[in-house]
């Protein structure tokens, strides 16, 4: 059985991944030509 903190950590990891993936997309739209 996993403790609640391991779930909090899992959520944190997913958010971190989403943060960096989001940066890829954000950069593309941020480029001004």
């Amino acid at each position, binding site marked *: *059985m996993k403790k609640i903190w391991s779930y909090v950590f899992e959520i944190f990891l997913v958010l971190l991944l989403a943060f960096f993936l989001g*940066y890829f997309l954000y950069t593309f739209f941020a480029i001004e*030509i």
Partner: protein
Amino acid sequence: MKVKSFFRRLKLVNHRHYIALGLIAVSVLFAVFKYELSYIRLFQSLMDLVDSVVFYFCKTFLGAEDITASVVELPKVDLSGVVSFDIEIFAEKFNYYWEYFFNWKNFSNYFMYVFTNISLFLSLCSILIPIFMLIVSLIKRVYLSPGDEEDKHKDTENLEYFKRVIEPKIIKAFQWCKSFVEFMLSHRKYIKLLILIWIMNLNMATILVGVVAFYFYFISSFNFASIPPVFIKLALDLFIMFAGASIFLWLTLAYIIVTRILKKRAYRILQHNEMKNRGLINAQPLVTLSCGTMGSKKTSSAVDMTLSTSVMFKDKALEFMIAHDMKFPNFPWLRFEEDLKECYEKHIARQDLIAKGLDSVIPVEETIYNLASSKYWVVSKAEAWEKEPTKENLWGYDFERYSMTYNDDLVVYHLFDVLIEYAQLYLIYVIEYSFIFGNLSVREDMYSDGGFLPMWNTDFFHRTPQESALTTRFAKIFDYDMFRLGKKMIENNVNSGAFEFGVVILTEIGKERKNNLENRENKKKSEETNQNNDLFNTTLKMIRHRATVCYYPFVRIITDEQRPESWGADARDLCSVMELGESSDLIVLYRGLFFDGFVHDIIYPKFQNFYLEMRNLRGDNTLLVYLFKNVLALLENRYDKLKNRFGFYQLPVTIRDGDLNGECKKAIYYISRKKTYSGRFATDSHADFFIRMAFKSGIGLFDFVEYQDVRQTEDEMKLQNSYFYLDMSKWSKI
């Protein structure tokens, strides 16, 4: 009239057909009004494919030099529906991408953007969390108050309304959805058409065609400079694809794909563990003894080994059969097999007639019922052929054209030598009865597909309990007289001498055979059958002689006992002793994604506490608890199923020789819940005896005498019927 009969016929059609056709029509409407760009791109991609194929042929077969293909050029499309800039700017952006990506200002802008959105979310949480906590405390206050005696068994008004009005509608809707899914699954053409339309709608088809077009271009040009523009094109198509549907659809798709990958991985690991177990079993001698304390999974491991061995025998028999087939590649094996099958059927028919007390008209020589009769049947066929050497007497084999012998550079085999072994192997392979013999019952569920050469489905992990139940076969009762060469329990027992091959599982073997010390009282010359005069151990020592086909013994004896010393050394010395260590906790290879585990580990225990307290305080039924309990029960059941399907235990084993001396080898045995605990055996297999005794006693916990104080009186001691007390009373007399 014709119109009326047409509509009458339409009414007879299952209405789900109309719904499926409606879904297809809606999908086509989407294609026309929403996904126009995807179809423009698909058309361009198909043109690219044609161009690339032409390029491939011109370049490869005609050697053309100054030609190019459209697949490496940027397409001309209007992107206004997807992004706010046109295709040239889209491509240009890639030139500056990494410059911007590693730019600190860009990153800080992104950080601010995220922070602004998060702060919005956090301020929302700051309102929602106190409201949630307030609701929880209110629920606790309302529900965890002592109920009245007169409300016992009663549903609250809300619950009654829900059960009467809303629940039937939910159930009906759910059943309809379920039946619709079943309908769609049984009419796969609708599903295929829908998938095809949506693959095109969401631009996936364009990407697939584009990949093939680029493949044709690249293998004939090897132009590495064409890769970056193609990537830009791919990025464009991916943009169109992801912009085509909501993020929830993509997350659902991602969920389905990820769970499929994880499940496949879990099945692969279970299968790998099974193979490791089989390696461990094969490394042991023919007799093994699992030892461990009560509850150490010794019967589980013995049953697991039994099931694996049974499957291994089938595989091994097939392996030898194929090898024999190759020795005489032109022999009509199928005809030979059909004759063998006919002989098995004749045996069953003959036994039926005998059971009915009728004199059998089927001669025993024409029947096959074991390895020995297989051999004699082929020998009789060999004699017939020698008397009259015709093709018909050899199942149509053209012995004048093809060889009757096979030389493997060790021995020259005659065809009939190989046929004897093939007949025996075929019996082992094809027989649909379990060849597990046990002093406890074991359930097997492997099944053959009934092909010309039947193939066995020996998968332990994928099948549902319902499917498995359809092919259930139970182990044969092990009659100890089968192994007694000396005195037998029943004189002229028909089973004695009948055992030839199979897997024998004997639990609590020490209690049956006992050790040398316990057998001291049993005399060899005794009139009664006992462990010293039944020559059971002699059978064990010579067991492989009766079970060997192709130099491979199709027999294994798997036993268990708490202590190895409980079984006499004469027999135990033949074994390898597997001493079981402490089993690991359940390891679940796939427990769903985040949500399933979270419900089981966090929400379920919290609800359980609340629920127990409520059960203690109240006797009525409330809507909230009813809903929560039903939803949670569904989710918990889902988790339970995952745990049982993908869970396994690691069992450390120490393997020693039966004389309990010599080197110890350490290994791990894997026990899969799905394989070993899906109704395979009863851990209380000897319970029937004790249940009868307890029932006959007529008393229970209500009736046993209690101590009157913490210090027992002499009368109370007397009630223990203890040796110790008898000794004490003797001493007190001194």
